[in-house]
């Protein structure tokens, strides 16, 4: 793999030999890949390939059995989840997870990167800067008019956007999105693609997605996973033409 030759270069994220074993079952098996700054990478692969687990490993939700994850020169495998967030890694989950009882405003405010210690949260004041940041993000995620609505009243698609907004306000260097358009209506998919195009202008993004149309639209490069390993990697056209990929994933 030519990426390996670039080892030691200016990658934003360098995953090497990453392995996790759940009671002997290797959900991710000796995986290596590298992300350049501002790259949009999409991971595809059949169900159970280990895509979600890779994101879990990077953000610290699951601890690796072996291997290393270097992000902007820092080793993430030893850090706790919130420390990884503070390093600049944001994670969106497959099912929308927002704070249903809080308003859209409060949801975004909670993710604003200030007042994260106990005392900080006690002293936190809703100043002009916070309000400005929240409004800016709300506009990006099409929720400007819903700021005072409880998140519980949002549609499924709006919740997905809100969660993306909660990442954006953290100002992460790397955004990881797990199936962001799953369960969305056609109209919502279009808007989400639009949203991602805005986001990808100034973030590095790692997306898990099934919708090949959508993947083709946004990806710089595609990594195809199968049974915890990388099956193929390259441009969308390259992986689409790869016989191994056609056999295990695109064929059916």
């Amino acid at each position: 793999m030519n990426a390996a030759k670039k080892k030691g270069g200016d990658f934003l994220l360098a995953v090497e030999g990453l392995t996790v074993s759940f009671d002997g079952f290797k959900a991710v098996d000796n995986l290596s890949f590298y992300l350049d700054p501002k790259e949009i990478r999409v991971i595809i692969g059949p169900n159970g390939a280990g895509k979600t687990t890779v994101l879990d490993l990077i953000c610290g939700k699951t601890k690796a059995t072996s291997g290393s994850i270097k992000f902007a020169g820092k080793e993430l495998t030893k850090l706790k989840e919130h420390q990884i967030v503070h390093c600049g890694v944001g994670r969106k989950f497959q099912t929308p997870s927002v704070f249903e009882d809080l308003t859209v405003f409060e949801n975004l405010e909670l993710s604003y990167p200030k007042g994260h210690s106990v005392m900080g949260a006690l002293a936190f004041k809703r100043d002009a800067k916070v309000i400005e940041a929240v409004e800016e993000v709300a506009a990006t995620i099409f929720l400007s008019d819903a700021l005072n609505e409880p998140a519980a009243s949002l549609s499924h698609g709006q919740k997905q956007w809100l969660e993306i907004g909660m990442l954006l306000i953290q100002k992460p260097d790397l955004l990881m999105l797990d199936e962001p358009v799953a369960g969305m209506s056609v109209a919502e998919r279009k808007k989400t693609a639009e949203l991602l195009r805005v986001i990808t202008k100034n973030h590095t993004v790692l997306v898990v997605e099934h919708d090949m149309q959508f993947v083709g639209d946004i990806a710089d490069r595609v990594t195809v996973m199968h049974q915890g390993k990388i099956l193929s990697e390259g441009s969308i056209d390259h992986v689409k033409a790869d016989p191994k990929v056609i056999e295990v994933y695109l064929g059916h």
Partner: protein
Amino acid sequence: MTTPSAIQWFKTREGIYYMLLALLLVVILPLTLDPFRLSMTGKYLTYAFVAIGLVMCWGKAGILSLGQGIFFGLGGYCMAMFLKLEASTPEATAIQSTPGIPDFMDWNQLTELPWFWQPFHSFPFTLLAIIGVPVLLALIIGFTMFTRRVGGVYFSIMTQAVAAILTILIIGQQGYTGGVNGITDLRTLMGWDIRTDEAKMTLYFICVALLFGCLFIARMVQNRKLGRILMAMNAQETRVRFSGYDVAAFKIFVFCLAAAFAGIGGAMFTLIVGFMSPSFVGIVASIEMVIFCALGGRLSILGAVYGALLVNAAKSGLSESFPELWPFAMGALFIGVVMAFPNGLAGLYQSYIQPLEDRLFKGKQAEISSQSSAPISQPSKAEESDGYDSSMDNYSAEKS
């Protein structure tokens, strides 16, 4: 809070609720109850401290501690140790084989005051210990449990276990703790006789003042971002973690806060009742405290106060006439509350009485909001239990 906004606050619904509670506790009850009954009420209020802590810890943050008696008891014992030492002057204990030490130590053949009793000669130390000892233990329990991500039922069981261990320890170490009888025969606090009617009256008012202090702190925590994080953690712990918060630290904080409140309540209990015993530390006492909180409404700090008052009033009413019936009534009450109205009295109040108030208040609210020329934003469910801090939550008001 600046003066004008403080005055505004008293005109809000929340402000009125607080004033009504103050009216009840400071004016109505002292005027209508005899000193004995008033002192009983004071005793019930000491449980309200625990219940407020449980609202924060269980209702808001979802951490159900079934061992709050531990902290109530520790606060109570700290106070009792000070009072006992004061009551055990060499003159008062001249007939003992070792004068100058507490009577139960003498009965247990101790000949000198144990080292951990020594600092309780000092009143400032005692005050510090009343909060410090419960908080320290909560810190240790919280740290070991929450950093290992032990939560839910496992945490509740652990707190029960600690309560049981502490009770056994206190009962077993009779010479050091007074055993199953506890620490009794307490007389004076810095020379002030706490057994007189006037003293009981004064202690009642001190208790009410401290209770409002704790209510104020709890209210501040719940209205700040900290309170929203606690609520969010309860529902979506993972999301809170990936919004960059160290969830364990927040859990430890709220558990320690509840322990501090319980410790203050325990110390006031000792002063008002005049003794402290292991029966207030153990499993049964701890579960009763959860029931006060559940009945009052586990999301409402004011509800918790009413819950503690009402359940205890019912308890003493019922157990005066039918003592054997009380445990069953209590059990039935708890099951009834959990099944029928999980948000307790406060929840009932919100769904049935507040709509009536809304109609009455409508004119008045409109007047207030037009004065401040800011629309009153809908408080989210997170704060609806006790109203909301208009200076924090009215996003539109801040903006203007």
